[in-house]
């Protein structure tokens, strides 16, 4: 009985728990503010005020659009190339042996190094941010797609072959659902990374975007404004994740409901 009630509370009150977590963060933030003062950690309230100022000045919206463009274009390029190459590598040993070390190498390069390089290559154009994002994130997608394609059940492939299923149905019904269970979590991570790298590139390039706003806030030594920009990035990340990635995940994983080891 008690166990049941507990489960209902946890399962049903998902939002409630999320709100509680958020409240704890804000409380800790406020405590930190009281302990260290305005300069080190502005209060949540003054951060919100700073955010209001940024919005009122008309800087907010263009910055959001630019950053979204940089992050999403890079993410898209990385997703397309990464999953295509990963899909091929998963099926072909030579391609896999050739590309995997490259991907590992690319993952090893610090994101900030890509930013610096692409600034040298593309200058201050918006392309620098897109490129940095794509090369930083692409290998992550590639690795997941390779692993997913490689581990498709051989029995199911034999079965599909036995029924002489055409290639299109083979990809859509045998490969894709399995690969997605690897790819979707990776895409979530990749998307979060995309925002970070995009902001980094913008900060150094000064070609607009949230990163540019952060650079300006730093120049003005305005901690509250800096925090305000951070909140904007996080909010953007959350909104896109909830609006795009989560529904896709939900759509493709309905069949998992009630699988042993899956929470309902």
């Amino acid at each position, binding site marked *: 009985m008690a166990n049941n009630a507990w489960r209902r509370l946890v399962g049903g009150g998902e939002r409630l728990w999320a709100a509680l977590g958020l409240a704890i963060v804000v409380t800790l933030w406020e405590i930190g503010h009281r302990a260290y003062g305005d300069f080190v950690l502005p209060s949540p309230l003054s951060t919100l005020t700073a955010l209001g100022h940024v919005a009122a000045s008309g800087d907010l919206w263009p910055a959001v659009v630019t950053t979204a463009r940089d992050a999403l274009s890079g993410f898209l390029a990385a997703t397309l190339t990464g999953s295509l190459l990963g899909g091929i590598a998963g099926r072909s040993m030579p391609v896999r042996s050739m590309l995997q070390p490259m991907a590992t190498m690319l993952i090893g390069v610090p994101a900030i190094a890509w930013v610096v390089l692409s600034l040298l290559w593309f200058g201050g154009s918006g392309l620098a941010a897109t490129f940095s994002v794509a090369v930083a994130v692409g290998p992550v997608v590639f690795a997941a797609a390779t692993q997913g394609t490689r581990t498709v059940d051989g029995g199911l492939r034999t*079965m599909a072959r*036995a*029924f002489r299923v*055409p290639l299109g149905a083979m990809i859509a019904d045998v490969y894709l659902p399995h690969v997605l269970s690897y790819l979707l979590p990776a895409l979530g991570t990749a998307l979060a990374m995309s925002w970070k790298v995009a902001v980094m590139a913008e900060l150094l390039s000064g070609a607009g975007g949230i990163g540019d706003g952060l650079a300006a806030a730093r120049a003005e030594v305005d901690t509250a404004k800096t925090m305000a920009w951070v909140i904007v990035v996080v909010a953007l990340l959350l909104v896109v994740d909830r609006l795009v990635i989560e529904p896709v995940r939900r759509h493709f994983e309905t*069949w998992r409901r*009630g699988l042993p080891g899956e929470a309902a």
Partner: protein
Amino acid sequence: MSQEGALTASGIGHGFAGARVLDDIEIWVPKGNVLAILGPSGRGKTTLLHILGGLLVPDAGRVERPFERPAFVFQDPLLLPWRTARGNVAFGLAGTRLARADRLARARSMLVKVGLGHSEAGLYPHQLSGGMKKRVALARALAVEPDLLLLDEAFSALDVGLSREMQQLVRLDAQERGVTVVLVTHDLSEAVRLADQAVVLSGRPGRIVARLAIERPARLRDDAFVEAEIRRIAAIETIRDAFRPTLSI
């Protein structure tokens, strides 16, 4: 009986990673006939079935397979975990020209024939029992209206009554459309009810150690006949040897 359209395998040998599994297998199944492959576990029955179905290329020998639409029931049901029972049966029809709606409709009526109604048709494999999964796999195979049907212990996870019903379903369908059938089984009574001929695989590597013909037409085989036939077959020395217990407990 004419040679035309027969499933023929000659001189088949096969091994996995150096270990020989099959040796010198000769098989001839006239069009519309039913062959049963019997034998103890691990002697290459599944391997032979895959070779006959063209899923595995043997190391030696040739297979003549003059068929257009082969269909399998695998030993593991091999259903797509992300498709419902209905979706899985329809998947077997993906290679046909049928429209999607027609495929689903045919899947649904085939599921009814194997005793799975509307409520079960929408369940995912992990929500089905072992026997239900086997029946979905059988429905998937029958739905394509095959001219060659390969059954790997298709009735083994079912209770006696249901297993008889499914055998009946396969027999009627096969007779009506002149389907050539190869079935692998551990159950002698299944072989006696359905098959026109049977081979017994035994030894390592697996060889055909006995061949049986069951002359009476399948539709005329009553329980008494099946019992007498089982007794006759079980008394044959080579078959007794093949199934002699190898584990001493």
